[in-house]
């Protein structure tokens, strides 16, 4: 068999159905072979390789909670093709998303001679992905691909890159070559993976939980990745402990649950951030105390013991010192802890009352604007649009935001009801991720409605993926919240740069004409009383739909803890000049 056949055989064995790929000299043989086996794979061609990485992410992330979890695979040619994958791979690494990237490489005979379209892909990718491979002989291909999938999906998830020289793709195996997947075991003595919690640390954790008066639970990405949302909710209910969410923890349980504090951190709710500030115990599941979550570390949760459940041991005690560190899978830990007979509950009347008071502040602040719906200039507010969308879809749809103010508005104002229905770029915050990621999510969950919500800036970073939507007939509902600015940066300029708007005003094209060019129905919404009808039209339409909302550029997302500030510095309310 040829190398290309082995590549596809391995992918097929791993349940891969979609290949997000873009052809070119050194990957042609693989794509050619795929063309011959056209019934096995659906080839989805992005309009830029970066799109492929985000489509792969969307597929991996959205399918994770279904009966048919799939790993997104993206493919590109060497040199420029592979370099176009970089941003999306780095993004997947930051957000622990399992994807596999296969890149063609120049032939082994000319590697490291600056051959045509040669880039040191392994060298470039090494620091921004979980593992890199370069099989140098045809009989290494299958075991490399299987190991790659194993590494990508075991322990803390992450992206893996396989760079395959063209001559290796074309090599024929020796007659006696065989590969038995059933007998295959990756041989990785250094791959530390510790899924089950240790008994004694668990007991210590339960002791702290039972003792605490003012506990808060954190729901991070690890809860989503280990499909533990329901268990987390059960645990919260059983112990009567409120839950705060990281950006990636959103949608693990209904966000309007009585014990939910909503999102915490830089743009978190007052109740979440104050609860963290005043807590005597933090029980953190599958998160890494990112600076967007903690603010100034020296002031962070000073009076709290910290129980940290995390699959990646290098995250334990990294930013926040723990009282009990549990290096284990979130789902397994919850499963054990939930059924521990020593676990007790308390009414926590004082603590929950304090939280309820703070929740009122957040609601009242939002209500000031939501009740009007538009800004001083009469233009729409993003929070209005997102809350309307939330009401109309009953919080049940899949939301894929881009990066910016609209992302934080979506995080704060969508009433998440469906498990694993929020796919956002967090660690990297990569503008342009939304449109391609929404395509991947829709392929994974074809029966659910998927909304891609972008700003005018980010939308234009991967606007070309409208071509993929057109070609694939993907039913993605697209919203552009157009405020004429790189809004999130503008907000910083408003708050911290004396309102000097350098490099943030942005002229956009006529999105209606663009939609028309791609044969996608379009509506521009400028008035409050047209918002609902437009959202309904898009929701009910079969196929992609583009909605452009003209938004107030001076809207800000609050609360906000300034970068580097502590929770005491939280800006809750806007003083208008």
């Amino acid at each position, binding site marked *: 068999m040829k190398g290309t056949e082995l590549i596809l055989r391995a992918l097929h064995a791993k349940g891969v159905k979609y290949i997000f790929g873009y052809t070119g000299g050194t990957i042609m043989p693989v794509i050619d072979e795929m063309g011959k086996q056209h019934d096995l794979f659906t080839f989805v061609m992005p309009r830029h390789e970066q799109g492929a990485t985000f489509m792969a992410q969307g597929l991996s992330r959205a399918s994770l909670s279904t009966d048919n979890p799939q790993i997104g695979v993206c493919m590109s040619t060497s040199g420029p093709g592979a370099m176009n994958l970089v941003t999306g791979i780095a993004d997947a690494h930051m957000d622990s998303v399992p994807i596999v990237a296969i890149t063609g490489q120049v032939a082994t005979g000319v590697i490291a001679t600056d051959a045509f379209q040669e880039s040191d892909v*392994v*060298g470039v990718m*090494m*620091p921004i992905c979980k*593992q*890199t491979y370069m099989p140098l002989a045809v009989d290494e291909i299958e075991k490399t691909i299987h190991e790659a999938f194993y*590494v990508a999906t075991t322990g803390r998830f992450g992206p893996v890159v396989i760079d395959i020289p063209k001559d290796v793709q074309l090599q024929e195996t020796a007659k006696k070559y065989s590969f038995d997947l059933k007998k295959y075991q990756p041989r*990785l*003595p*250094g*791959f*530390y993976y510790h899924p089950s919690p240790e008994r004694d640390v668990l007991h210590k954790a339960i002791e702290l939980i039972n003792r605490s008066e003012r506990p808060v639970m954190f729901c991070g990405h690890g809860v989503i990745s280990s499909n533990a949302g329901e268990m987390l909710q059960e645990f919260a209910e059983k112990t009567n402990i409120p839950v705060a969410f990281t950006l990636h923890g959103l949608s693990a349980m209904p966000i309007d649950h009585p014990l939910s504090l909503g999102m915490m951190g830089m743009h978190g709710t007052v109740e979440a951030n104050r609860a963290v500030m005043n807590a005597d115990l933090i029980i953190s599941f599958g998160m890494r105390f990112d600076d967007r979550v903690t603010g100034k570390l020296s002031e962070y949760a000073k009076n709290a013991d910290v129980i940290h459940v995390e699959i*990646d*041991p*290098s995250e*334990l*005690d*990294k930013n926040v010192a723990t009282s009990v560190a549990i290096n284990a899978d979130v789902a397994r830990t919850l499963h054990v802890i939930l059924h521990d007979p020593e676990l007790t509950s308390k009414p926590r009347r004082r603590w929950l009352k304090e939280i309820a008071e703070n929740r009122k502040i957040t609601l009242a602040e939002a209500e000031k604007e939501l009740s009007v719906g538009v800004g001083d200039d009469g233009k729409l507010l993003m929070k209005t649009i997102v809350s309307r969308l939330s009401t109309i879809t009953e919080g049940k749809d899949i939301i894929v935001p881009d990066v910016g103010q609209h992302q934080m508005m979506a995080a704060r104002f969508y009433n998440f009801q469906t498990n694993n229905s929020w796919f956002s770029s967090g660690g990297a915050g990569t503008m342009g991720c939304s449109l391609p990621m929404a395509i991947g999510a829709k392929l994974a969950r074809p029966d659910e409605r998927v909304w891609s919500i972008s700003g005018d800036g980010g939308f234009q970073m991967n606007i070309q993926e409208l071509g993929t939507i057109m070609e694939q007939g993907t039913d993605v509902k697209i919203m552009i919240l157009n405020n004429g600015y790189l809004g999130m940066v503008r907000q910083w300029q408003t708050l911290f740069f004396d309102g000097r708007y350098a490099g943030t005003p942005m002229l956009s094209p006529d999105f209606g004409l663009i939609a028309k060019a791609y044969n996608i129905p379009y509506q521009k919404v400028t008035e409050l009383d047209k918002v609902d009808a437009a959202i309904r039209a898009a929701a009910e339409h079969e196929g992609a739909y583009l909605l452009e909302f003209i938004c107030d550029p001076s809207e800000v997302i609050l609360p906000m803890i300034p970068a580097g500030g502590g929770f005491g510095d939280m800006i809750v309310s806007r003083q208008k000049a």
Partner: protein
Amino acid sequence: MTVKKMKRRAILAFVQNKPGTLNKISMMIRRKMYNVDTLTVCKAKPLGVSRMTFTLREDDEARVLQLIRQLEKFTEVIRAKELDPDTSYWREVAIIKFELGKKTLEKLQKTYQFEILDSQPHDIHIIQIAGPTDRLDRFLEDLGAEHLIEIARTGVTALDK
């Protein structure tokens, strides 16, 4: 800027003997903003495993632990740990070429017991000396920089008691 002399640390890593492993380890050390003082690599007892010892400067225990955990995260790193100077031997070897009169040479040899590898006319000698870093440093001091022609040092390798 005054550079504070920080505590010297020896970190030992058992790694898979594969291309790219050294690259990854040095990349992580760079990302953590350290400068490698010394680095030695050799084959370890198990087949296909290399033993890497490197030294760097850091006072903060937590940061050293972080580095070790992040190194261990690489699939190629089987085990990494810090070697405590009180419970381990740190040694290095130097090959030194210098010009020195016979009398002083003999005196130095009595103190340091090095091996003379080569002696050439005009009092030029090549010697091999091994021991803890400070012993080698002391030898060089006693020798005097004006006599030194060239020096090759391996850097520290270390072993637990």
